[in-house]
């Protein structure tokens, strides 16, 4: 995963809600090595703003050499980005961070809160693909030829449809996994209100449950309220969102005794692990400074909930 700073060309930009934008940039060298849960740092053109803005990867399209970035206008930097149009350029540093560990075959919660939702989309896609591959090889083992070929195609086809196909296959090999194969990727999305950006895209990869703060759609309340109201369960949690949500999920995971991977945020300067700006407190002594500080930009942004203090 070689990091690079390069000038990317904007491939397109759409406005998703009042303050959320969806930008695709051509950055083949960054896309090449990127994995879900990683992020890039974007530079503004304003000389008064020296530090780059970290933005998670919402989509990685290696074939097109494109990255998809979905972000909220938080200040002057993101405001500037929101004005970019196809053909404009933007400097980008990446890919940064570790990414989510892939544990296919497990029944997973992919939980996004607010602007923590975008990185879960690429994870949903990747997990669904991995699940399909796993199902394919399991089927292949069981001799079910049809399922295997569907799985082999999954990479090239829209993942959702490949998965739907895979899920539709009769498969006696792994009954437990099979029972929920289409249900392995359960997305729980917490929104402020009914402006449910990206929601329909998650639906391609598995069931989607929604919580809204104002109660205008789905469960009124937060993502845990939705999980409880719907009586959902999982064997592993992946999550990104505001700290109170992450804290609640850490407690919930401990209670359930399941592993929980959280993507954290902190103010960053270098983005590559050199400046020690972006630490979180870790349970164990960290490898870098031998204290209890892990660098979110380098050792994270994804951590096992047990490893960190929130």
């Amino acid at each position: 995963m070689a990091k690079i700073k390069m000038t990317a060309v904007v491939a397109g930009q759409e406005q998703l809600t009042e303050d959320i934008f969806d930008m695709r940039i051509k950055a083949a060298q960054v896309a090449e090595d990127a994995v879900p849960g990683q992020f890039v740092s974007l530079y503004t053109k304003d000389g008064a703003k020296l530090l780059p803005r970290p933005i998670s990867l919402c989509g990685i399209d290696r074939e097109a050499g494109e990255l998809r970035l979905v972000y909220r206008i938080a200040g002057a930097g993101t405001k500037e980005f929101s004005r970019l149009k196809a053909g404009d350029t933007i400097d980008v540093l990446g890919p940064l961070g570790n990414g989510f560990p892939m544990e296919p075959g497990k029944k997973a919660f992919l939980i996004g809160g607010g602007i923590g939702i975008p990185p879960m989309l690429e994870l949903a896609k990747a997990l669904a693909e991995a699940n399909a591959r796993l199902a394919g090889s399991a089927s292949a083992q069981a001799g079910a030829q049809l399922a295997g070929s569907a799985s082999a195609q999954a990479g090239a086809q829209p993942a959702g449809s490949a998965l739907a196909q895979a899920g539709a296959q009769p498969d006696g090999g792994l009954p437990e996994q099979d029972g929920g194969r289409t249900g392995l990727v359960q997305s729980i999305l917490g929104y402020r209100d009914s402006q449910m950006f990206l929601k329909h895209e998650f639906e391609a990869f598995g069931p989607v449950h929604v919580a809204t703060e104002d109660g205008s759609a789905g469960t009124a309340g937060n993502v845990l309220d939705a999980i409880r109201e719907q009586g959902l369960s999982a064997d592993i949690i992946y999550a990104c969102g505001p700290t109170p949500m992450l804290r609640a999920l850490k407690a919930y995971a401990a209670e359930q005794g399941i592993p929980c991977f959280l993507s954290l945020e902190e103010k960053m300067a270098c983005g590559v692990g050199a400046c020690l700006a972006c630490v979180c407190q870790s349970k164990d002594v960290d490898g870098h400074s031998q204290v209890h500080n892990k660098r979110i930009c380098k050792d994270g942004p994804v951590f096992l909930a047990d490893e960190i203090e929130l």
Partner: protein
Amino acid sequence: MDMSVKIAGVEFKNPVMEASGTFGSGVEYSEFVDLNKLGAVVTKGVANVPWPGNPTPRIAETYGGMINAIGLQNPGIDVFIKRDIPFLRQYDTRIIVNVCGRTTEDYIDVVERLGDEPVDMLEINISCPNVKEGGIAFGQDPKAVEAITKAVKAHAKQPIIMKLSPNVTDITVMAKAAQAGGTDAISLINTLTGMKIDIHKRAFALANKTGGLSGPAIKPVALRMVYQTAQAVQVPIIGMGGIMNGEDALEFILAGASAVAIGTANFHNPYATVETVEGIRSYMERYGIDDISQLIGAVR
């Protein structure tokens, strides 16, 4: 064309290094730049024992710069010697170890531990504004500067560089004190103490309330202090503070710096160090300067 400079008997292939604390021990930026191309790598401040540093947020962007209050998080000298020095020894570049401490004994402890290590110089940070004890307290009183310089010098096997704080009324007083204490070189400037407030949260932007201001915003202050110091002392100066490229570096060299360090610029452009080397080289070519020593202190 000769870009090499000599500081306290140590020869550097070129006058460009990076500034302590912005580059770790080089591991991370070695993904972007060839460390062999740098005059030296200056490591993040290291103490006798691990320091956890300050709570977050530790940095905030400001107009043309940033403030930081990392608080000198570091793994302590043992890990540093075991892990970071061997890493740096792989490269053909000078190694300058930046040393921090809470007491004079802390500094001496680290310096002694480094005595038999293959490092080229020691930079003694008596100017960090972000720790409660030690750091800047040493750097704002000429008597303390002289005393700690003497104490460290007495125990150091490598030549030492005293790193001065700009948060003083008269930088030349501190520089002379360091010279009187027997320092081999002086580096300046460390950061200017600054603050930022989040008006919407009505809270300090940094957990530490104040932090050190760095970046091009402070360059005029840094350059003025390098110039004043060059007029006041005989020891060589390593200049830093807001250097973004070769042109900025040349200002410092013309003002009297024998070498320059690139700090905050790395965050804006991870290639800033090598690009600065190239920028100086092309300036020298353009004006037919065949030895960089012709430029050092040429404006007075």
